């Protein structure tokens, strides 16, 4: 005879490893066996949710891309990406970005105009004995 305590533990572990999923998932809502309560709108109304199991895939993709674009507009790249150059809000992701900027803005290759603390330290020290 199986131990009911053991069974309940087993069942609980299985649920954790393989959460049940709804056949119909809603964009912005939980897909597990414990969906979000209807009162939770996730910041928008129920009608804004995108049904993933319906047709018109192209239209849904366009809606998702539009939402992503809106989010991107709200979050400046230079502040959100740790790898971006933050100085003067330039937001360069790589040296190729800065190279392109240079080609447009500093065509005479006068990189010495833009200094940092090290360059200043060297230039100021040349006047010393």
């Amino acid at each position, binding site marked *: 005879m199986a131990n009911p305590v053991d069974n309940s533990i087993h069942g609980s572990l299985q649920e954790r490893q393989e959460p049940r999923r709804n056949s119909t998932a809603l964009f912005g809502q939980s897909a597990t066996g414990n969906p979000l309560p209807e009162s939770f709108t996730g910041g928008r109304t129920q009608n804004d949710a995108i049904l993933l199991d319906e047709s018109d895939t192209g239209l849904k993709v366009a809606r998702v891309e539009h939402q992503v674009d809106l989010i991107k507009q709200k979050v400046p790249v230079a502040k959100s990406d740790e790898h971006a150059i933050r100085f003067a809000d330039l937001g360069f992701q790589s040296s190729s970005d*800065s190279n392109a900027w240079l080609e447009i803005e500093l065509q005479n*290759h006068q990189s010495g105009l*833009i200094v940092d*603390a090290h360059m200043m330290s060297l230039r*100021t020290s040349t006047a010393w004995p």
Partner: protein
Amino acid sequence: MTSFDNKVPKYSSTIKGHHVLRNNSSYFDSIISHSDWADIATGFKMRLQTSLAEFSNSHGELIDQAATISSKAHSLAHSSLTKSVAWITGFIQFIDDYYCELSKAKFGAEKAWHVTTRLAKRVLDEVGTPRHGVQNSFRVGDSSQICQQIFWAVLRSHDVMTSFSSLSFKNHPSIATELV
């Protein structure tokens, strides 16, 4: 371009790489004691501040002559100059404040200067890291490529500088790491 030789500016240290020090020696072999740094008449700090003001004026004029006023390059160059001056000023203040705090905590003059210069050197090391080794990638005669390399290194260096100044230097994680 020679500023890419060393992580730490030559005015403070002429030694490249790691070296072993006594417990109370300065990490800046060109600024051995606090009096070498802070002396009102001959101290490095005073000379640095004077040179800084002179350079700021002369370089500002150079930018105005070389770049079209109100262009992006012009504003970026002035911004880099202003922020660099502000950063070095903050760095000087950090050295003074930290030495003062250690002195109040009953550290001896030599020990206080030893710890302060150790932290200051760490700051300069961190700021110099994005620039380090860039000189090796320069292609001789290719001014465009050299400009690109320098520009990228300077921008990354500025981001590191900002990370220190925004945390008042002493609150930066690398300072805590150095004190462990």
